[in-house]
């Protein structure tokens, strides 16, 4: 399956605004993060476990246990600082 990954703020500056990623059916959001980490380089740096990274699935705040489906929109971003 294929999911659309979007990045915002400091993550966007490091990785670009968006990319499509191929994943096994039934993968979780955490598995997607693992796959991105495995690429090494900037992905491994800014998405590293222990860094403050928040995520959304289909434009709703989510966590890494969420199961993805084909066509899902996943976003990774730093803690929010609006208001």
């Amino acid at each position, binding site marked *: 399956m294929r999911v659309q990954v*979007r990045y*915002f*703020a*400091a993550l*966007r500056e490091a990785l670009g605004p968006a990319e499509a990623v191929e994943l096994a059916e039934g993968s979780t959001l955490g598995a997607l993060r693992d796959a991105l980490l495995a690429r090494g380089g900037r992905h491994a740096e800014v998405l590293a476990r222990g860094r*403050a990274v*928040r995520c*959304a699935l289909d*434009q*709703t*705040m989510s966590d890494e246990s969420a199961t993805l489906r084909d066509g899902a929109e996943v*976003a990774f*971003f*730093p*803690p*929010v*600082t*609006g*208001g």
Partner: protein
Amino acid sequence: MHRVAIQTADFDLSAEVAALRAGDGGVGAIASFVGTVRDRNDGSAIGGMELEHYPGMTERAIEAMIDEAGRRFDIRAARVVHRIGPLRPGDQIVLVAVASAHRGQAFQACEFLMDYLKTQAPFWKKETTPEGARWVDARVADDAALARWGISAGNA
């Protein structure tokens, strides 16, 4: 009137409040909050800031917050305006306005919406300082503010 606006343009508090209460004779209280850009933060002079957001999710998240405020408090209308793009010290950033029959529910709902927005709406601030541009860090105090309402933020 739409309940949520995300815009680069400034807003007019008086006009927003007038629109919020227009045609509703049951309104007896309006509480509003306006957030503005400070000229200092964490010991540095702030020359300006850039506000980024997640188009689509931002509007959905704030709509959901207003729905939740409506379940928790006896309010008649609510309006949230949040600016994006480049802002200067002194500029208005955000407006939360709530209309209710009586002041208690209006005050509470306004504070609830603002606490919720600070940790759950996808906005990010990048400040310009004499030392260069920097992304603003989330504050644990903002998570604590939302926790008072029984909601775990998990943001900062």
